[in-house]
């Protein structure tokens, strides 16, 4: 049954995981995402749906538990915040190399290093460009509300299983901590072991039966030509995802001369900036990438022919702006405004930056 609740973003993602039929969560406390694990432990989903929950000894263990669970075809997730996600990068690379569907949630905080516990968007490069070693991508989706935080859990799992790729929800300390109204979707029962075997038995380690060859999950191949072939297969898959899975939202872009490009919390701030700009008579719109990888390249490229300028707004020193510039390819000016270290820009600051560059 659908249900309306007032929840933190972190809690909403935890509840959404139970409702979408996840089989296991493995995680380690870190601010500002600890509510995910706390909610799950209080909710006791092992009694509700049979979902396994475990507080691991570290983020390194968590991500490797994810690898073990995902290797058996089960629907598993973990969550952490920036420093913990850095610790997980080796495991994420293995998950990508072994083509394992799973979900990693990053509730981003300020960095570098231990940084602080305030919201930030400075993990964009890490999330979208690889993060760990080797040529790989995650499916990266960025919510800008508690509702989207909840909705994207099932959505990300669906994409992960469709392509056998690890997915990441790139949230931040603001969306994770703030409370909003959220409509929770109806619960989907967890797949039975038989259903898991039927769906994933051709690759997952569910136990070798006489009717099939044994299944091996590994990211190792010592023969360079074979590993190159595997890389080609991964790249072909990434191209397919880039062609089919791009999501973005345009707000007042149709008649706009100028466009703000921002995701997550920054996009919410920019929505207000657009309103303020319109009140002053500026034709300003907002384009919000929802999937950060695949990045909405074609839509951005289109702006090169239809708009006069772009201001990219991020809670970082300027990371996504590189992808915007790459796709505009010098056709129109692309400027940047950002705050760092956990500081959230105000709508007025963004408007002032826009005026400085373009008016």
């Amino acid at each position, binding site marked *: 049954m659908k249900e309306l609740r007032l929840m933190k973003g972190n809690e909403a993602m935890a509840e959404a995981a139970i409702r979408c039929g996840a089989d296991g969560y493995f995680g380690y406390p870190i601010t500002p995402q600890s509510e995910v694990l706390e909610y799950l432990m209080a909710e006791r989903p092992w009694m509700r749906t049979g979902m396994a929950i*475990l507080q691991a000894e570290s983020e390194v*263990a968590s991500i490797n538990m994810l*690898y073990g669970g995902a*290797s058996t075809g089960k629907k598993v997730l973990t969550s952490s915040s920036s420093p913990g996600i850095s610790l997980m990068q080796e495991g994420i690379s293995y998950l990508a190399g072994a083509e394992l569907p799973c979900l990693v949630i990053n509730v981003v905080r300020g960095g570098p290093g231990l940084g602080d516990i305030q919201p930030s968007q400075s993990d964009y490069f890490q999330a979208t460009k690889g993060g760990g070693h080797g040529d790989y991508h995650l499916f990266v989706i960025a919510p800008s509300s508690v509702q989207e935080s909840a909705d994207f859990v099932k959505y990300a799992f669906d994409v992960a299983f469709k392509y056998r790729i690890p997915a990441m929800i790139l949230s931040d300390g603001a969306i994770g901590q703030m409370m909003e109204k959220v409509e929770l979707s109806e619960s989907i029962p967890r797949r039975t072991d038989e259903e898991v075997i039927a769906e994933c038995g051709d690759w997952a*380690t569910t136990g*070798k039966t006489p009717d099939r060859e044994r299944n091996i*999950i*590994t990211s190792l191949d010592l023969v360079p030509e074979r590993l190159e072939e595997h890389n080609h297969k991964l790249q072909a898959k990434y191209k397919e995802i880039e062609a089919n899975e791009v999501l973005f939202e345009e707000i007042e872009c149709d008649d706009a001369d100028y466009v703000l490009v921002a995701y997550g919390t920054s996009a919410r701030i920019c929505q207000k900036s657009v309103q303020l700009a319109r009140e002053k008579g500026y034709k300003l719109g907002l384009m919000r990438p929802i999937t950060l990888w695949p990045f909405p390249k074609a839509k951005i490229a289109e702006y090169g022919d239809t708009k006069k300028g772009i201001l990219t707004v991020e809670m970082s020193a300027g990371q996504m702006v590189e992808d915007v510039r790459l796709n505009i390819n010098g056709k129109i000016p692309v400027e940047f405004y950002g705050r760092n270290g956990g500081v959230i820009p105000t709508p007025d600051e963004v408007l002032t930056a826009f005026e400085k560059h373009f008016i």
Partner: protein
Amino acid sequence: MTDKVLSYCPGCGHGTTHRIIMEVVEEMGIQEDTIGVAPVGCSVLAYEFMNIDMQEAAHGRAPALATAIKRLWPKKHVFTYQGDGDLAAIGTAETIHACNRGENIVIVFINNGIYGMTGGQMAPTTLPNMKSSTSPYGRDEAMMGHPLRITELIANLPGVHYVTRQAVHKPGHVRKAKKAIRKAFEQSFENKGLCFVEVVSNCNSGWKMTPNDSNVWMEENMFPYYPLGDIKVDGNLVK
């Protein structure tokens, strides 16, 4: 076992240990219900030889993988196969916490006192004064620390049910080791806790000896530091 030719050096204990694990699996009739986890080290390719579904872990993380597999598939037999560098150096945290949680899995731990695959570097279990490529003048305990008896360490954890140290260089030892592995599979499956079988093995290539000489050296040097026999039985430390 699969038909694949073993990649181990002639005289090494890995092949024998692989075989007795697979014999136990076959004799218990649990091939369909067994999932193994291979480590990083000489046995990184263990999954090529064991005819069951297997996963290849990152270095040291096999117990974390096994934890999740067992919790998501509680009716499966789950085991890890790990060397001393993997289990007692880089994977120490995962080893100790899987043991401490009492995960109902089997850990088979091959201790040959050296990093074999990477070319004979010092391991956490390298003996005092023992030479390796990163302790070419012998392990200086004041500088490099002491050999880690991790098996005795984890035996003290309440989550661990059965701990034993075996060898596979002589037929009598092989028979005993196989019995120990079977007991470990049976008791972990009964949800009694984690069962841990250490196999003290030779590394004739890494030790730069003939297979025969390495076995003699192992008996004279490794066994006094790592004495064979049961350490914990039915949840009780052996006095």
